[in-house]
């Protein structure tokens, strides 16, 4: 049953803005249409929506007051970090409030004794590494958007990056958060210790896509920089051979820091864009990065080279300098902008599949692409089966955006069909909400929504994201069977 939040009247919003101004400095409450415009979309730009009011609170107490007021007015709130999300998670709700954490940009504590950093949620992902790199540390999860995206957004999305194969996603690297619930309650979950005291709430707040609470502080663990980092650039004359090589590397007990693959089309695109010097005749290239103690890295470079040759690699190059390693990566990092040179728009997908399904899935993707008439560039975190097909289209050609969306959804369905999932790191948001039933039954989704109800029973926080159907919490909470109505199951008793 649909129970969308009723759209508030403009008059209500005026009163609400006035109330916000009682608790926030005037410049932190944005009602002017031009000033609101930049917030109408995140990096998933296919769908836009103007927010009713934009608020920029400066501290946790103000966030709590903003949420309480929204609750009092029955107005939905959408939290926002840097707006680099690719699934529409930070897309405003019509007539709602957009709460941006833009002013939360301080690092609160760098604690080398306990190898962690406490930061406000608006600090960028790279900002954390920057703050500790002179002392030889870094924060491991490294989304490609790391210059811009915020640590709060990373926690909300459980973001990944090239190095998650070895170092895990955000969830494996967060120790604690401060979270403000829709009631304005300030919860401290976790801290600098490793284990939870009760239920592991961190594991659900991470990846909650702004639906459970507003994150106002984050504690992450930091790692010492590895002694050495080297990469191999391996080429193959077929995707299949590349896929087999990946299986063989991992099957032999090696966990590279990163393992990335690109197809021929992408290789050409990046060569055109920034000339990284990739092999000219390869059907696919693999970048395998190894990090750690020098002795180990050198040893593994040898092992991986042998495995690559055994799997029919047509070329194997190992980086011998930092400059060369960065050159290997240059093309991979330029894949998105290079695609943007070919067509004005691109749609990035983010499905994950079991590694051993790579070859058949890529073949199907090729067929779907041909049938739709749209070109796809394939780049992927192949080590963990996370595919990022880029569908190229031109939004000015009538029907192309819709065709791109349809093709994208077909590909994500395919991921689920082979045992994979709809999203590996970008989140569900609005983009994949309609596809959730591909992966989850109604019962599965209702169980997830009950979690939402425990945090936000009136569903004011980021409504309309993640779940295809809104259910009232009262309805989800009800138990439909009672004493005497269920027969004793056919089961032995002892």
């Amino acid at each position, binding site marked *: 049953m649909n129970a969308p939040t009723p759209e508030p009247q403009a008059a209500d919003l005026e009163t609400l803005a006035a109330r916000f101004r009682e608790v926030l400095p005037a410049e932190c409450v944005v009602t002017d249409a031009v000033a609101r415009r930049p917030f109408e979309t995140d990096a998933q730009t296919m769908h836009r929506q103007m927010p009713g009011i934009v608020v920029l609170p400066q501290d946790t107490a103000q966030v709590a007051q903003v949420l309480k007021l929204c609750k009092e007015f029955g107005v939905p709130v959408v939290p926002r970090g840097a707006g680099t999300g690719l699934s529409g998670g930070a897309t405003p709700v019509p007539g709602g409030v957009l709460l941006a954490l833009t002013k939360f940009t301080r690092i609160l504590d760098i604690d080398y004794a306990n190898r962690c950093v406490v930061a406000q949620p608006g600090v960028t992902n790279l900002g954390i590494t920057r703050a500790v790199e002179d002392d030889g540390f870094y924060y491991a999860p490294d989304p490609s958007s790391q210059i811009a995206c915020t640590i709060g957004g990373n926690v909300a999305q459980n973001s990944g990056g090239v190095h998650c194969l070895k170092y*895990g996603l955000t969830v494996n690297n967060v120790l604690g958060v401060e979270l403000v619930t829709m009631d304005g309650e300030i919860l401290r979950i976790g801290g600098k210790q*490793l284990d939870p005291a009760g239920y592991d709430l961190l594991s659900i707040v991470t990846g909650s896509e702004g639906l459970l609470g507003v994150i106002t502080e984050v504690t992450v663990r930091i790692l010492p*920089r590895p002694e050495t980092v080297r990469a191999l650039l391996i080429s193959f004359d077929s995707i299949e051979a590349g896929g087999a090589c990946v299986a063989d590397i991992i099957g032999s*007990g090696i966990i590279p820091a990163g393992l990335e693959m690109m197809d021929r089309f992408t290789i050409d695109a990046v060569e055109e864009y920034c000339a990284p010097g990739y092999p000219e005749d390869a059907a696919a290239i693999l970048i395998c990065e190894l990090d750690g103690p020098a002795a*180990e890295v050198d040893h593994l470079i040898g092992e991986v080279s042998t495995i690559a040759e055994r799997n029919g690699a047509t070329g194997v190059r190992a980086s011998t300098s930092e400059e060369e390693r960065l050159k290997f990566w240059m093309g991979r990092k330029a894949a998105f902008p290079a695609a943007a040179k070919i067509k004005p728009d691109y749609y990035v997908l983010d499905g994950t599949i079991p590694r051993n399904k790579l070859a058949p899935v890529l073949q199907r993707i090729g067929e779907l692409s041909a049938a739709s008439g749209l070109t796809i560039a394939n780049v992927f975190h192949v080590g963990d089966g996370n595919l990022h097909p880029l569908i190229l289209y031109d939004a000015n050609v009538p029907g192309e955006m819709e065709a791109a969306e349809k093709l994208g959804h077909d590909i994500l369905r395919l991921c689920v069909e082979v045992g994979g999932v709809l999203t590996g790191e970008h989140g569900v948001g609005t983009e994949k909400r309609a596809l959730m039933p591909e992966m989850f039954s109604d019962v599965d989704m209702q*169980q997830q929504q009950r979690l939402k109800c425990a945090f936000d029973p009136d569903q004011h926080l980021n409504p309309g994201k993640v779940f295809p159907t809104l259910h009232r919490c009262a309805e989800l909470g009800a138990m439909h069977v009672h004493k*005497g109505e269920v027969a004793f199951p056919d089961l032995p008793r002892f």
Partner: protein
Amino acid sequence: MGSTYKPSDERQLAELVTWAAAEGRPLELTGAGTKRALGCAVIGETDRVDLSGVAGVAFYEPEELVMSVRPGTPLDEVERLLAERGQMLAFEPPDWGWILSGQSAPGTIGGTVSVGGAGPRRYRAGAARDFVLGAHGVSGRGELFKSGGRVVKNVTGYDLHKLMTGAYGTLGVFTEITMKVLPTPEKTYTLLIFGLSAERAVAALGDAARSPFEPSGLAHLPRAEAARSQVSYVHGAGAAVTAVRVEGPEVSVKHRMGELRALLAGYGQMEELHSSNSLRLWHEIRDAWLLPSEVEAVWRVSVPPSAGPALVEAAAPDSWMMDWAGGLLWLGYDVASAEQGARLRAAVGQAGHAMLVRAPRALKAQTPVFQPQDDALARLSARLRQGFDPAGILNPGRMGDPAGAKAA
């Protein structure tokens, strides 16, 4: 004493829970029953569900680093199957039997994941929750549901399976658990440093942790605890022993041992353990096997590593040991008292938490076994539980259902 039911598959289990929910009959869930003494006892008269029949491997694909098993599968069987393919559960699940009953009792994988523990590698590799990729389960409504998947990179929907990990069966019953597994390291070496105080030990362990030499075990044993080890170098040290573990390919392990020796040279006299001695020592640490078996009360305390030494001092235990570079403390008291717990928790404050692992029944009944949570968190936890199990029939009281924490 209620009845015991032994479902043989998830369908039977779901029917049973549906019936119990309708009747309002609480159920105690057990695998092999080896961890019944861990956490709180269930409250009131319950029927028992023996999950040992819902067992077996659903699939194991070594080259994909994934294994999916039903909850009643014995932990040692899981570990044996993995070992055959040179793999392991990297979170090093402890054998709780030693501390709870003085003998090995690894129990089932369902129990292992439900109590959510992790061994010395926690510091580097993560805990059970970091390795559970997905699960199928039965909620307290008797509904079969799933969450997550079989791939590592997955952010589709909420990670209910991670929330259920460590929830002592109070949210749902696992019927299948899908886990990420990892290759077993080729070599395991351990660097021992002798004669350090707790404070110096944490400094040394911190230096190792901050180095690029990737230690995967960072522990400290006072003299008396070290003397209980079966590893002769540790047993015969006649001094406190600080241990740093290094795992990986042989060339790497040798190189890192050399570097660590140089780095930590100023701390004290050193020795190295290789292979089986090294494995043995880390099992002893993992299972808190080195605490004397006659202590009445054992606490497990999770704090920021640097807080470890001061806490040991404040808590004044009769025996103790430290893992996770100082972040995990095992504290033993020869004679248990409620006052110890109060003093310990006051010393921990907001900086971590203390769990009462072993104690005489009477003490467990009066001392909160899990660290009491602040009100807002306790109410939230109660509401979460209600969402999974509205009738409150799954393992009621097993996590000590915070007194007065009514879902609001």
